[in-house]
């Protein structure tokens, strides 16, 4: 930068990251699962979290949706809310609840075990949030849900109950249920880990397509091939810290940290 350049002003809202997480910490009793996690997610970006089980990656993801509450650290969503967890813990419970709801308002979660509502049909599962929470008129919610189901190839299943679907179909409905909320941020918690291997592809394809369409997402997964193709940034977590981060290219072909290398080796060459 030359001295004649103007001092840059605060970045404009369009350039601010959608999400900034700073110093997230969380302990379950004696067990420290998060020990200071920092990362950013820019609009339209796909951030993939990888790491061994117990590394804290799922706790990070669940914190973004208010399903876990970190003990300390700051979550700053552009457009709100901005949550300082250490301060929140000292404040009134009511305020904490408001912040949690505001957080959920911005994001939507796809679970490992889909967690579809078994007593509702596919269509009812998808419109439950829009109609019951967001007060979208039912006719409009049904039209939008049908269009979304059509996009993932499940339009003809709209009146089926979840138990009548295959695992891959159930998870695609889980994704549509999240999309129907029109969140700014999509969260995926090991979306294919509970699936039979031959059903993994159809779900990953849907997620990859959403990424291409520009949805902002944070994905916890063990599917390294997916991470390699779809991620803008990969974070490797271990022991509650981000050990290494970078583009898939950097992380998978030239990992800098020994722990990253060992983890990748274990997954890519399990028999060695």
């Amino acid at each position, binding site marked *: 930068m030359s001295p004649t350049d103007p001092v840059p002003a605060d970045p404009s809202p369009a350039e601010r990251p959608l999400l900034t997480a700073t110093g997230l910490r969380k302990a379950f009793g004696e067990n420290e699962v998060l020990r200071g996690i920092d990362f950013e997610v820019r609009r339209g970006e796909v951030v993939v979290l990888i790491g061994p089980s117990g590394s804290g990656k799922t706790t990070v993801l669940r914190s973004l*949706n*208010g*399903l876990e509450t970190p003990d300390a650290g700051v979550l700053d969503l552009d457009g709100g809310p901005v949550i300082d967890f250490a301060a929140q813990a000292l404040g009134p419970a009511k305020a904490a609840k408001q912040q949690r*709801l505001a957080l*959920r*308002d911005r994001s*939507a*979660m796809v*679970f490992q*075990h889909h*967690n*579809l*509502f*078994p*007593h*509702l049909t596919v269509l009812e599962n998808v419109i*439950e*949030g829009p109609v*019951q*929470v*967001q007060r979208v008129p039912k006719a409009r919610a049904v039209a939008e849900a049908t269009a979304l189901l059509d996009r993932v190839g499940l339009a003809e299943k709209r009146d089926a*109950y*979840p*138990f009548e679907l295959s695992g891959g179909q159930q998870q695609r409905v889980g994704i549509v*249920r*999240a999309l129907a*909320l029109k969140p700014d941020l999509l969260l995926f918690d090991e979306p294919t880990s509970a699936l039979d291997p031959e059903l993994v592809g159809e779900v990953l394809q849907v997620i990859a397509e959403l990424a291409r369409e520009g949805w902002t997402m944070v994905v916890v997964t063990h599917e390294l091939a997916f991470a390699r193709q779809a991620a803008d940034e990969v974070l490797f977590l271990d022991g509650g810290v981000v050990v290494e981060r970078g583009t898939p290219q950097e992380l998978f072909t030239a990992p800098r940290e020994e722990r990253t290398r060992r983890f990748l080796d274990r997954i890519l060459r399990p028999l060695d």
Partner: protein
Amino acid sequence: MADGWQLFLDSFWPIVWGAVSGTIPLALASFAIGLVLALGVALMRLSRNRVVSGIARVYISIIRGTPLLVQLFVIFYGLPAIGVVIDPWPSAIAAFSLNVGGYAAEIIRAAILSVPKGQWEAGYTIGMSHAKTLRRIILPQAARVSVPPLSNSFISLVKDTSLASLILVTELFKVSQQIAAFSQEFMLLYLEAALVYWIICLALSSGQSALERRLDRYVAH
């Protein structure tokens, strides 16, 4: 023998009328009120507030730890001693409702706990409050689980209403007793009363099966 058959026929409709005007409305009213009470007590019992869950715990303990007949007598014969006089019907409904409230609360609590935690989280993640998740997601699933044990409670209640005859409520068993005393045919009349109770419970059992089939439409078989 012919006389016995004639007495059976003559007494049959009065006894059935005792069921229709006494036993069945008493059981229905008590069960309906008892279920509302039970849901409230179950939610109190699940509350994180120790005082609230403690109150529910004590209530359940008293109801389950004392005989229904004693509860009935406390309300009808006991309360007047402290100036509270309640008519036979309201006394019976109060006692049976409180009883159902205690037992069904534990059934409903267990049913709520049987719904996987992921269902609560799925409700929260689509933006629902705790209360709304409970109402729209958890209770419909808990209802399915609790139908068989609650049906058993209802069938027990129908039979337990015979105790109301001891506090002057005219119902199925009271009618049988009166005819038995008058005719001195105790064996015949009490067997006849048993038969009518059995028929009612058979009908309830088949109703239970139909309800379970309806609620099972969304689960794999």
